[in-house]
């Protein structure tokens, strides 16, 4: 059953990534684009976890953890820039 479900899940998450890219290119304002980038990194974590289950290896968790940390820092930095005009005051 897993061999049937995992390709479906891959397709759904890939469609989600495509929708995020559409919003990233389209987005009328800069908070929209930041939100699209934020969603993109969360979806990348989902893709990496699915790949780990598919290949049966636990090699990709460190990469997923790093993406989670760096993505959050990036989102906060971009929001601070929009709010204050500077990142570290």
């Amino acid at each position, binding site marked *: 059953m897993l061999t049937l479900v995992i390709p479906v899940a891959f397709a759904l998450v890939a469609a989600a990534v495509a929708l995020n890219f559409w919003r990233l290119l389209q987005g009328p304002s800069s*908070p*929209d684009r930041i939100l699209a980038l934020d969603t993109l990194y969360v979806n990348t974590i989902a893709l990496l976890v699915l790949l780990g289950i598919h290949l049966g290896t636990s090699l990709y968790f460190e990469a997923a953890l790093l993406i989670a940390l760096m993505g959050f820092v990036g989102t906060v930095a971009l929001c601070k820039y929009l709010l204050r005009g500077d990142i570290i005051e």
Partner: protein
Amino acid sequence: MSSWMELILSFLILTGAIFTFIGSLGLARLRDFYTRLHGPTKATTLGVGSLLVASSIYFSNQGQGISLHEILITLFLFITAPVSAHLLAKAALHQKLPRTKETRGNTDEGA
């Protein structure tokens, strides 16, 4: 792996993928920024959390002890998602982004 364990795993993976997709669909389809903020911050977080729990169960069944990496990522995502959503909302209010008539709430008071 027993068949009922596989059933639980399939359910969790499918739920996670569907919620991730719905979150991005909300991001692409909703009409103004304040409603668009809801999709990724709620549905996507739940979807990825479900996928990570499925991965944790899968690797705990491989016979190398309990796998706890995923719990770490889940905790981190569940803590950071509201913080980034709050900052994004503040940035949007600061820029005075337009909203549709249907979006309720006194957003002009903030920022």
